[in-house]
């Protein structure tokens, strides 16, 4: 595992979402935007564990998972900025990124990622293909009925389903421990004969090794795996959320203590894997790349209104 690669990936993710933020005040992104800022370690771990043919089905907070799956950054950013050049020609937008070439999709409906991922898992299983389907959900999504239905099916037939739970402690304003019957989400795995583990999702190497275990478990035909990775959501639930349910000072300290990039930077320095200069340089380069990407995407056209009724059905243009 290339440690600098981990670092680079987390930078790409962070800076990708930071350029997305620029589209909100300008109205270039005129709907909801959910960023993953603060949750980069999980995204980077996912990138490290995926094989090309694996499928990923994500949520409303999906940018990092798309990057991990290999969705081209420019197509993504253009889609998020509602451009005709976007991954979905501006029809889908930030919550609806679909990239068939990379078996990546997502949904804005909480809990709805699991059944779709299970479909991929079933396909891999029936054709004896050595691939896994990774469903992503937040902590809140695990209280939806799909969690039960899908894990039971995967457990009954040993389907290669990996459920990656990004537990950022909150579902909008509702904290998970107020609505969860058990101390952890991961311990529910026993109810499905599944592999289950809870891990500190701010430490990229820790979460990577746990996710690797989970993926190998499923890939080897042992049935589903649930990895609960804790993390901290740096920003409001969506851009515009007053975030009144968290105390400002708590937020500040949490951000300082659980920034996966800072944590990993310090680790790399402590281990002598890299130098301040090199890491600063990587950071700058990444920032500049994303700034350039944003500038280029901004030059693209918005979709022409005349096409608004196209694609209701495949092969159909109104």
């Amino acid at each position, binding site marked *: 595992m290339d440690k600098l690669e981990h670092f680079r990936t987390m930078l790409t993710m962070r800076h990708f979402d930071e350029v997305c933020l620029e589209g909100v005040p300008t109205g270039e992104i005129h709907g909801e935007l959910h960023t993953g800022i603060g949750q980069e370690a999980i995204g980077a771990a996912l990138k490290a564990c995926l094989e090309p043919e694996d*499928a990923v*089905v994500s949520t409303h907070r999906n940018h990092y998972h798309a990057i991990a799956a290999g969705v081209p950054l420019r197509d993504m950013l253009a889609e998020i900025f509602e451009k005709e050049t*976007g*991954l*979905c*020609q*501006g*029809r*889908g937008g930030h919550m*609806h990124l*679909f990239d*068939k070439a990379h*078996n990546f*999709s997502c*949904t804005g*409906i909480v809990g*709805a990622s*699991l*059944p*779709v*991922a*299970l*479909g*991929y*898992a*079933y*396909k891999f299983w*029936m054709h004896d293909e050595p691939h896994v*389907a990774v469903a992503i959900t937040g902590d809140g999504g695990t209280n939806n*009925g*799909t969690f039960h*239905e*899908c894990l*039971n*099916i995967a457990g*009954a037939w040993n389907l290669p389903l990996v459920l990656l739970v990004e537990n950022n402690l909150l579902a909008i304003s509702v904290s998970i421990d107020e609505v969860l019957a058990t101390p952890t989400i991961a311990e529910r795995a026993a109810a499905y004969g599944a592999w289950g583990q809870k891990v500190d999702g701010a430490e990229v190497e820790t979460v990577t090794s746990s996710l690797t275990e989970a993926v190998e478990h499923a890939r080897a035909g042992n049935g589903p795996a649930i990895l609960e990775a804790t993390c901290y959501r740096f920003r409001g639930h969506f851009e515009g959320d007053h975030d009144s349910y968290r105390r400002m000072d708590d937020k500040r300290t949490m951000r300082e203590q659980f920034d996966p990039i800072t944590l990993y930077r310090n680790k790399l320095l402590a281990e002598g894997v890299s130098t301040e200069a090199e890491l600063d340089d990587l950071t700058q380069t990444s920032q500049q790349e994303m700034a350039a990407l944003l500038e280029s995407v901004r030059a693209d056209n918005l979709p022409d209104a005349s096409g608004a009724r*196209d*694609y*209701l*059905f*495949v*092969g*159909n243009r109104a």
Partner: protein
Amino acid sequence: MSRNLSISQTVAEAIGLEMERDPSILVMGEDVGKIGGVFGSTRTLQKRFGDKRVRDMPISEMAFTGMGVGLAMSDMRPLIEIMFVDFIGVCLEQVYNAMAKIPYMSGGSVKMPMVIKTAGGCIGSAAQHSQCLWGLFAHLPGMQVVAPSNPFDHKGLMSAALRSDNPVVFIEHKALLLKKAETFLNGGHVPEERYTIPLGRANVVREGDDLTLVTISASVEYALEAAKELEQDGITPEIIDLRSVVPLDIDTLATSVNKTGRLLVVDEDYLSFGLSGEVVTRVIEKLGPSALKQVARHAVPDVPIPAAKTLEQAVVPGPASIAQAVREMQAAR
């Protein structure tokens, strides 16, 4: 040579023929495998194609409807059976927000060759097991909605549905599934070979001049029975079988209404905010209000289906009530 198959056998035959030619088709649902469906419309398929391509599922409709979406995105062609359409409320999310929208949301880059097969209509099991609901699906963009009325159409439309690259909701009628081909007034002959009927073409099942009677599914047979009765009174309705709610074949309707100037929509689904109002409105949009001398609707009067047979017959269209509706229109001419 004619074979006296039941409707469910014609459906199973269509699915089997399509599965033979296309290995990407698979069937998932409750009781579709070992027993071949509670009405037998997937019978013998599991024996022929194995239990991975024909799969008995747990009662987890949201999961396996969503699985259909994932399977379709991974180049399979899933047929998902929701036993009764009444149960769609437990999994509508994956139907209308995923299956129906992904082609559009993806800018046409992801196709969704998926069929949802389900049984609607009334057979005496009251409010939660007697609905049609095609009006519900039709209101939500991105799905073709098919409801065949006779053996020939069931086979041909199922084949067409399985070959479509776009989602299809295929609504059978519980009262038709066990009915034998030869007992049908229309479309009783079912060729053995594979054939398709294009989706979205209505069928003039009986020509007439007095009024245009538009309907779908089991009510087509009821209307034909009513027509026989009405012959004695010298009333000849032109009866149109829509075959599909989406696409709605407005041209065929308009041609007929142009001739008769009178429109009666018969619908076993709920009266309001559904098929019947849309048909009336589309005809008027096409021909102008002046083209219509008379309009009437005969449908379930916006109440749940009651249990008692006396009450059920009072709210669900049948041959007698359809004949009655036609006579009332004639009387009001």
